[in-house]
Structure formats: structure tokens, C-alpha cells
């Protein structure tokens, strides 16, 4: 701790930070542009000037950029000094000489850091009477809009895109006052994190193009804290609604999980909520009229529900919904809505995690690793935000060196200059090349079994108690030694693996390495990527796969099946799933979107998406996180699945429609925990529904929310009563507590004078650090070590390529492989066309050229796919894009036959 004097008042501040961070942490409103808490300082914008004094007696002082000054004990500075103030306001005035008169048509307006800083410095009238510089714009793809006139040359965009996210195709061009931030040519921004430009850029140069389609100002949105539904990491997001439509997703800061950034799938994958494919009304098939209302539905269901029911849960539904189903059908009739193979994989993952012999790191902790080993995951496509963290880990290791020459950790440009192309150790094992390969120090392209064998071999080298691998290839054995050597010297090694290749041995091998690395004082970090946003939550319920229903040995099979938020055809394949479904007399499907399985339903029930429901999910690190309903849909049939299911239970228990009582999600969670203590802690993921601050709820709408008395006036001039929210401490209105709420309940970031996302500063204990009261989410894995050592022994045989049969492996794609995000037009546009990746060796043998059409026979289905030849792929292996709409339900990995179409 050091004492600094700001305008002659002493303050205690943390050393190792820069002055700007210290001033902001202390609550001073000091303007800035180029500094970013996650990206450090470069001193480019000259906006953060303060006066520094030599000592007590120095009254003249000198101007200095606070973001470029280290904290020193006994430092004297002035923020209010007239010269410093005038300097800051002049900097803005200079920026404004060229700034367009665009606020009215600028999507940044109302959440614009430049607007805020202009007001803060007091610049009001443009005194410069000459012409403004202009630029032409570029087309940057479906996600990001470009309006270059608004640029203030702070360089944040390129620093984020190139330095932080590893993008290649955004840069700064030209010179002096003509610098231009864009691509070399018009075209799609390729990086998977391009959406963050909209938040990183302090102006309206880069904005969210999907928001533009239904533009709404930040102050006009009803917002709620939510959780991304598009992969297992559970990034925290803010979802905003206007006029009954979900309009925007932004990152919600959580220093442990996603920090400031989310990926493009998470940011732009929200359009399924507004899809015309939504189920709008309960439907009872094979009668007239099919669409029914709630009372009719309940009358119809009364008989059906009274019998024995099979319930199929979902890895993309909340804990509450899954539990409500389990409660309705009974423990023994509840099944996981995932394939057998997947259930097995998840069991293994949970067994390893629960052993307590490894440390499960958060994403933030992953950034601190000095050696990262990835076994069989293409992170950029299966858990994008984690790939971004790995990038930081790799750079940070190199930067750690700089401590020796006294470079502070915030001094970004100096650090990058110092390390040049130097990187830390990233070891990557995957069948084909991945985006992270470019920063990897060691990359090896192996078939899945070989990855597992190599993994086992490494564990064996690290600690001979772990099983050895027989008949290891000489090359691979040599390689194992190299990797084992690197891991051995690591201080904070991190092993990343996952279910991506569907190979259990890889999961076990990764665990063995982590176990072997464990020392007396330290557990190695191990993190698994799993398929869906609540895969862990569902797996923790420990039910069998629905594929086991038919073998469950029932004397007579139940007649009724309830499928919760799940398209069984995606996990089992069309013919198998539909014959399974049709073996039931009554099939009740509860979901928000129509899909193949919902077509087979005899009773179809609409439910809310994450934006219309409250719920809790467990991410891949075992963090239980609550998402809150964003808005009350006008259609009253759209309700949380757990609400429907709880009522079904009441009906089953013999109540009439009039006697139904309102369920509460907290009760459900409470019961869940009593019945399954492994979920203990999930109830604390957010304050309970009756939580109030000074007797008030927390408003979902900013205080400037407009149009309350007009938005529905076309329907009826008397305003309806605003919807109530009995389930949560949030209200659907603009009335309520205006201070900083507990961190899981922050619906949006705003602070007086700080309308943009930069207001996050005010919600943090220290700038860039955790939120007040701790970051949201409760870790359910206790990390208590079980006494018995876990040694996994499942070394696979070496893979032998078969001339006529290929092992078809799934290749995930950030855009396309996920069920819900594909409904966004931009995501769809960026998703791959169906293809088959085959090895160069196989291609040469069969005389296949790039783009030749190959026929793939797999699980009795036939596909015609264009060939993509991969030099690095091992022979006998072929890859197809995982679960894209044209190729779903294939239960990969599987054996398939490839036939070349005859040349015409």
C-alpha cells in the first residue's frame, strides 16, 4: 500500500497499478479513452492528464498522463488543477473538430463513452470553423457496422482485435491525421470476438449490426442479468428487450468467468428468441381445432398425466425445469435427454472432478497458467471464451519475464515491445489444425485414440504409477517425453480437455496427467469442455440416457412420454428417435422452437426461452449461475417449463384447474437440494425472490426509459398494470432501488455521468477487479479430496486405419454447431456448408481432389459432401462439421463408408 495525495488529500492505494486506475478506483471521474482495464495503457489519447508535483513545495507541477504513471509512495497530484482541466477539455475539443454531427443517428448514442467524456470535461461549442475530415466505410460482415467518421484514434480496436484476440484482418492504415481503422479490403471480420469491438470502441465506429435491425437506445431497453446459452462456459450476459422482442446481448462483467468479453456466438446468437419458428400455443394434435387454451389443455392432460410417465430432461433447460420434470415423473422414470455415449462421458467427467484431486479453474484462473496442454478440443469452436483466455495465458507467461526489468504489468505497449513474438508454452493435440495452433509451441495432429495414448504416456512419464502405453510409436514416445518435460517444469500447468471428440479415453488421459502433476502442495488445474450450457447440471442429476428407456425392463411400457426442451433427433438420429417417440401413445413436448421431435408430439406446449424464464444453470467449472427473465411475453401461453410442469404435478395429484397454486422457483430449488445434496449452494446463486433493498425491488428499466404511456396506447389508451414478478427481486418497471444492487442482480451498468459500459468501473471493488460483494455464481464442486487415489486405466489400442471404413469425427464450428444460435441470420450466414475433411493420404489413394463430391454412408444415412483435403489429418479419419443443420443427429464419432462419385 502507498499513500498518494490527490489535491492535497491523502489516499491509501494499491501499488503496482497506474494512477488512472487508482483515481478511478477511488471514485474520481477522470476521463480516459485508450486505457482499458483488461488491456492496459498505451498513452495514446492524452485524455487522462493530471498535474504531478515533485513534492509538497512544488506548486507549478507538470502535466502527465495518469495512465502512464506508476503509483509511488508520497506522490502528489492534482485532478482539479485548472491547467490539467483545460488540457483535458482541449483534447476533447481537438477530437471534436473532426467528429461528425451524428449522435442522433449513431447507435452508440446514449451509451457513448465519447459523449460522457465530452460532458465530463465541459467542452460544449465547436470553435473550429474549418472543414471536417471524412472517411468511407467498409462492409464488415453480418455482425459489425462500420462508420469511420466517428473515430477518435484511440487505437483500442486494433489493440483488442489484434493483440488481445489474435485477429489478423483488422488493422490501422494510412498516416498522420488520416489513420484508418478497418480491413485491408471490405469483407467479413473473421475473428470470433469481433462483437466486442462494439463495446471496446468508445465511439460509434463499430456497432452491433443486429441491433441496428431493430434499433433501440440503451435507456429504452428492459434488461436483466442473464447467462449465455450457447456453450458450456456460461458467460454472463445482459439481455435487453423492447416491444416484446429481444434486441441486444452485451457482456455482463464477471471477473471470474467472462471478464469484459464474450464471443460472437453468444452476442449474436439471440435471434431464436424472436424467431417465427417459436411455438405460440398449446396444441393437441389429431383433433379439431388443434390449438387450445390452458383450461382445455388441462382437461385433456388430466387422464394422460394420471398414468406412469417417462420424462426426458434436457442439457439446455434449467435445473428448475429438469427438476420439475423429475418430480412429476418420479426419479426412476427420469432420463437425461442425451445419448448413452454422452451420459457415459459426463459420468467420467463428474467422477474426475468430484475426486477433488484436481483444481477446476475459472476462466480467469486459466489466464494465469504458464503451461497449457489441450487434449482433443478445438476451443475456438467449442468453448470460444476459453480460447481467448488461453491466448492471454500464453502472452502473460512471456510478459512475466518483464518483471525483471521493472516493467509494470499495465504498460501494454512496452510489454508487447519487450516480448516481441515470444510466447509461453501452449501444447495442442487435435486431429486437424485449430486456430490456437498459431500461438502453440507444440502442436501434434493425431487421431483421437492416439491423443489419448499420448496423454497416458505423458502421465506415465510424469509419475510411473500411472499406466504405461504399450506399442507406442517411436515418434509419439519421443514427443511424450518432450511434453512431459515441459509440464514437469511448469509452475501453474493447466490441462484442458473435453467431450468434443466423444472419446472417453482422452478425458481419462487428461485426468491422469493432472493427477500425476499433483504435488504435495498443489493440485494441477484441469478443465473440461462439455456440450451444452447445462450439461453439468443435468449430469449431476445422475439419470440414465433416454436410449435406455426401452431396455429398462418394465413389464408394461408407460404410455406417456414428456420431452423437455430437447430435439431427440439431434442426439440420436432421425429414424431411431422417431421410432422411439412413436412407441408411446402420448408424447408431450415442451419447447420454445418447433423442431423434428416436436413434429411428432401429440401434445405440444410452448415454453419461455432464457429471455422469458428464470432459472439456474451449472457451467463447466461447476458454477451455478442464475439467469433472470428479461420480459413478460404478451402471449400468456409462453411460460417457464418449470411452471407448466409444476402445474402438471398438481393436476396429477388430483387438483382441479381452479385449485392450482402458483409455483415458485425457489421452492423447486430448495426441494432439489434436499433431494440431491450435490446441488447444495445453487440456492445462493442469487438473492431470493423476497429480497429487497430499502423495501424496494431492483428495476429492470433505466430511469430514462421512455414511452411508458404510449407504447401500448394503440391497443388501449388506458395503460395496463405493469407485469409483476413474484419470483425474483427484480421488477419489470423503472421504479425501484437505484443504487448498486448485489452482483447477481445487476440488470445493466450505469452510473451518473457514465452511460456507456465503462460505468462498470463503478461496480467494481477495484477497477478491473471483482464486483462489489463478489462475482456472481456459486461453485458446486467443493474440491474436497477423496482419500483414495484415482488412477484411470483405459489405454486404447492404437488406431488402425481401415481401407474401406473411416472413423468419422465431429468438427465443431462456432457458427453452425449449436442448435439455437443457428436461428440468427448472421450466424447462419457464417456457418459452414456441409463438407467432409479427409486425409491427404486417403485422398491420394482414392484420387480425390479438393471439392470433389464424396458419398458418405453413416448410420444408414447417405450424404453427398464436398471433400476438403487436410494435410495434417491422419489416414483413416474423416471429419464432418458437427451438428450443422444438414448433418445433425449422427451420434459421432462413428464408422462410415466413403465412396467417390463417378467422374462424369
Amino acid at each position, binding site marked *: 500500500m502507498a499513500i498518494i495525495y490527490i489535491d492535497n488529500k491523502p489516499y491509501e492505494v494499491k501499488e503496482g497499478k497506474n494512477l488512472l486506475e487508482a483515481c478511478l478506483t477511488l471514485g474520481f471521474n477522470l476521463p480516459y479513452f485508450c486505457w482499458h482495464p483488461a488491456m492496459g495503457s498505451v498513452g495514446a489519447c492524452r485524455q487522462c492528464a493530471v498535474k504531478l508535483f515533485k513534492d509538497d513545495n512544488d506548486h507549478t507541477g507538470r502535466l502527465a498522463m495518469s495512465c502512464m504513471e506508476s503509483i509511488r509512495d508520497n506522490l502528489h497530484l492534482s485532478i482539479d488543477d485548472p491547467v490539467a482541466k483545460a488540457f483535458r477539455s482541449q483534447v476533447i475539443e481537438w477530437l471534436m473538430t473532426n467528429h461528425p454531427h451524428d449522435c442522433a*443517428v449513431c447507435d452508440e448514442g446514449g451509451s457513448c463513452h465519447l459523449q460522457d467524456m465530452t460532458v465530463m470535461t465541459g467542452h460544449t461549442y465547436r470553435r473550429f470553423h474549418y472543414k471536417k475530415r*471524412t472517411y468511407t466505410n467498409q462492409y464488415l460482415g453480418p455482425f459489425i457496422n462500420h462508420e469511420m*467518421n466517428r473515430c477518435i484514434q484511440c487505437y483500442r480496436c486494433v489493440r483488442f482485435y489484434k493483440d488481445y484476440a489474435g485477429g489478423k484482418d483488422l488493422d490501422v492504415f494510412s498516416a498522420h491525421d488520416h489513420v484508418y481503422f478497418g480491413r485491408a479490403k471490405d469483407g467479413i471480420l473473421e475473428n470470433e470476438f469481433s462483437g466486442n469491438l462494439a463495446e471496446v470502441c468508445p465511439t460509434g465506429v463499430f456497432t452491433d449490426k443486429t441491433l*441496428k435491425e*431493430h*434499433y433501440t437506445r440503451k435507456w429504452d431497453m428492459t434488461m436483466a442479468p442473464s447467462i449465455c446459452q450457447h456453450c458450456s462456459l456460461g458467460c454472463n450476459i445482459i439481455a435487453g428487450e423492447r416491444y416484446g422482442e429481444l434486441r441486444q446481448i452485451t457482456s455482463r462483467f464477471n471477473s471470474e468467468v467472462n471478464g469484459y468479453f464474450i464471443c460472437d456466438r453468444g452476442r449474436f446468437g439471440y435471434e431464436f428468441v424472436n424467431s417465427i419458428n417459436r411455438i405460440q400455443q398449446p396444441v393437441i394434435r389429431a383433433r379439431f381445432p388443434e390449438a387450445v387454451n390452458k383450461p382445455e389443455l388441462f382437461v385433456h392432460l388430466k387422464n394422460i398425466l394420471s398414468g406412469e410417465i417417462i420424462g426426458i430432461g434436457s442439457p439446455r433447460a434449467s435445473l428448475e425445469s429438469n427438476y420439475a420434470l423429475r418430480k412429476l415423473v418420479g426419479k426412476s422414470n427420469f432420463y437425461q435427454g442425451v445419448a448413452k455415449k454422452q451420459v457415459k462421458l459426463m459420468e467420467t467427467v463428474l467422477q474426475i472432478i468430484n475426486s477433488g484431486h484436481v483444481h477446476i479453474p475459472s476462466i480467469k484462473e486459466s489466464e494465469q497458467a504458464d503451461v497449457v496442454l489441450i487434449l482433443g478440443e478445438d476451443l475456438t469452436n467449442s468453448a470460444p471464451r476459453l480460447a481467448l483466455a488461453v491466448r492471454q495465458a500464453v502472452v502473460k507467461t512471456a510478459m512475466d519475464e518483464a518483471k525483471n526489468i521493472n516493467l509494470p504489468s499495465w504498460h501494454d505497449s512496452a510489454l508487447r515491445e519487450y516480448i516481441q513474438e515470444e510466447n509461453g508454452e501452449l501444447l495442442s493435440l487435435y486431429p486437424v489444425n485449430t486456430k490456437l495452433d498459431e500461438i502453440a509451441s507444440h502442436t501434434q495432429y493425431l487421431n483421437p485414440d492416439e491423443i489419448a495414448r499420448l496423454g497416458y504416456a505423458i502421465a506415465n512419464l510424469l509419475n510411473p504409477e500411472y499406466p504405461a502405453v504399450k506399442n507406442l510409436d517411436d515418434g509419439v514416445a519421443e514427443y511424450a517425453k518432450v511434453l512431459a518435460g515441459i509440464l514437469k517444469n511448469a509452475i501453474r500447468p493447466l490441462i484442458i480437455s473435453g467431450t468434443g471428440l466423444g472419446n472417453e479415453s482422452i478425458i481419462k488421459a487428461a485426468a491422469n496427467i493432472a493427477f500425476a502433476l499433483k504435488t504435495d502442495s498443489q493440485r494441477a488445474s484441469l478443465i473440461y469442455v462439455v456440450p451444452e450450457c447445462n450439461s453439468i447440471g443435468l449430469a449431476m442429476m445422475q439419470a440414465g440416457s433416454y436410449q435406455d428407456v426401452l431396455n429398462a425392463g418394465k413389464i408394461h411400457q408407460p404410455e406417456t412420454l414428456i420431452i423437455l426442451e430437447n430435439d431427440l433427433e439431434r442426439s440420436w438420429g432421425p429414424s431411431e428417435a422417431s421410432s422411439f417417440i412413436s412407441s408411446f401413445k402420448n408424447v408431450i413436448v415442451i419447447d420454445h422452437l418447433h423442431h423434428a421431435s416436436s413434429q411428432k408430439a401429440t401434445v405440444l406446449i410452448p415454453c419461455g426461452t432464457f429471455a422469458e424464464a428464470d432459472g439456474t444453470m451449472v457451467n463447466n467449472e461447476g458454477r451455478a449461475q442464475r439467469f433472470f427473465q428479461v420480459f413478460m411475453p404478451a402471449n400468456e401461453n409462453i411460460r417457464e417449463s418449470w411452471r407448466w410442469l409444476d402445474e402438471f404435478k398438481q393436476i396429477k395429484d388430483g387438483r382441479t384447474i381452479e385449485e392450482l397454486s402458483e409455483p415458485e422457483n425457489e421452492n423447486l430449488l430448495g426441494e432439489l437440494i434436499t433431494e440431491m445434496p450435490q446441488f447444495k449452494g445453487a440456492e445462493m446463486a442469487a438473492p431470493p425472490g423476497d429480497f429487497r433493498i430499502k423495501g424496494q425491488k431492483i428495476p429492470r428499466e433505466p430511469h430514462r426509459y421512455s414511452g411508458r*404511456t404510449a407504447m401500448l396506447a394503440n391497443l388501449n389508451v388506458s395503460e395496463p398494470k405493469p407485469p409483476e414478478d413474484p419470483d425474483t427481486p427484480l421488477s419489470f418497471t423503472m421504479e425501484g432501488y437505484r443504487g448498486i444492487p448485489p452482483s447477481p442482480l445487476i440488470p445493466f451498468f450505469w452510473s451518473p455521468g457514465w452511460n456507456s459500459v465503462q460505468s462498470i468501473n463503478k461496480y467494481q471493488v477495484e477497477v478491473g477487479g471483482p464486483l462489489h460483494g463478489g462475482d456472481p455464481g456459486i461453485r458446486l464442486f467443493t474440491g474436497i479430496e477423496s482419500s483414495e487415489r484415482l488412477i484411470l486405466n483405459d489405454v486404447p489400442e492404437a488406431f488402425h486405419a481401415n481401407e474401406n471404413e473411416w472413423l468419422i469425427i465431429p468438427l465443431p464450428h462456432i457458427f453452425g454447431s449449436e442448435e439455437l444460435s443457428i436461428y440468427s441470420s448472421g450466424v447462419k450466414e457464417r456457418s459452414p456448408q456441409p463438407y467432409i475433411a479427409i486425409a491427404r493420404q486417403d485422398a491420394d489413394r482414392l484420387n480425390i481432389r479438393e471439392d470433389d463430391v464424396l458419398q458418405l454412408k453413416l448410420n444408414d444415412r447417405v450424404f453427398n459432401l464436398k471433400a476438403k483435403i487436410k494435410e495434417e489429418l491422419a489416414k483413416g479419419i474423416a471429419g464432418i462439421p458437427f451438428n450443422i443443420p444438414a448433418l445433425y443427429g449422427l451420434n459421432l464419432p462413428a464408422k462410415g463408408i466413403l465412396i467417390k462419385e463417378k467422374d462424369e
Partner: protein
Amino acid sequence: MISNLRTMALTFLHIFRKRETIQYPEEKIKLHPRWRGRIVLTRDPDMGERCVGCYLCAAACPVDCISLQSAEDENGRRYPEFFRINFSRCIFCGYCEEACPTYAIQLIPDFEMAEYTRQNLVYEKEDLLIDSEGKYPGYNYYKVAGLSAGIKGKGEGDNEEAPVDIHSLLP
């Protein structure tokens, strides 16, 4: 007592003053141009819709009786897809006019808006949009904004240089 008599006398003297009361509705009152009455949406000199859907009027409105949705045409020009004012709530404070950066929304000297049913006081864009520039002729926002929205190209605005040639390194 004296004060009472004086008051009565003064009141009595008003009989000989010029009369302020007029025989409305037979006789019409003369209102000044800046009188704050019925709200209209005006057009720019080229007769394009002036409103750019910036939501500032809606945010400024103290009773929140303005609601709109902005949309964009094929040239990137913003306009309100719908624009609704609930006059049964409006207090004619004129804040919306003050907030408007384009002179689109204006309060005009007309107060004769009475209706038998309150529902009829909800005005949509069709009811609000007039074919005139209103009180501020000559102003065209898109000529001074940096955005190119079919009115002018980049750098062709009133106070703009031609777009930067980013391939040139000349000073």
C-alpha cells in the same frame, strides 16, 4: 374597509377597459407561432421525413407519452417505422421539440383537439406528419451529419472535406 372599497372601485373601472374575453368558437383567437399546441412531425426542404428516429424526444418527455421505432431505408436513412403520441397524456411542455436535433417534432398553435373518446387522442405517424417544414425552414439534418444516407455522399456535406485517400502517405 378602505381597502375593500378601493378594490370594488378598481373592479368596477374594468367595465370601461378593452374586453379580453372573446366569443369562442364563433370568434377565433390569434395565437403566436411559438404557442405550444398540437404536435406535428415536419419534413425537410426536400420533403423527406425529417425525423430520424433518435428517441431523444421520447426520452425528454416527462410523461413518457411518445413511443416510436426507428428503421432504416435502403440508403441508410433513418426514419420512424411508427411514431405514436398519446395526447391524453401530453402536457404540451415542449420538451420534445427542444430535444429534437432535427427540428422534426414541433408544437404548433392549435389546441382544438377535443375528442369524445379518449382513445382517439392517440395519434400515429400518419396523423402527426405534415407536408411542411414548420417553423424552421431550410434545415436538413442529413446535410450536416457525417452519415451518408442517400442525401449526400461521404465528404459532400456542408462542412466536409473529400474522404481521405488511405493509400496516400502525403502530408
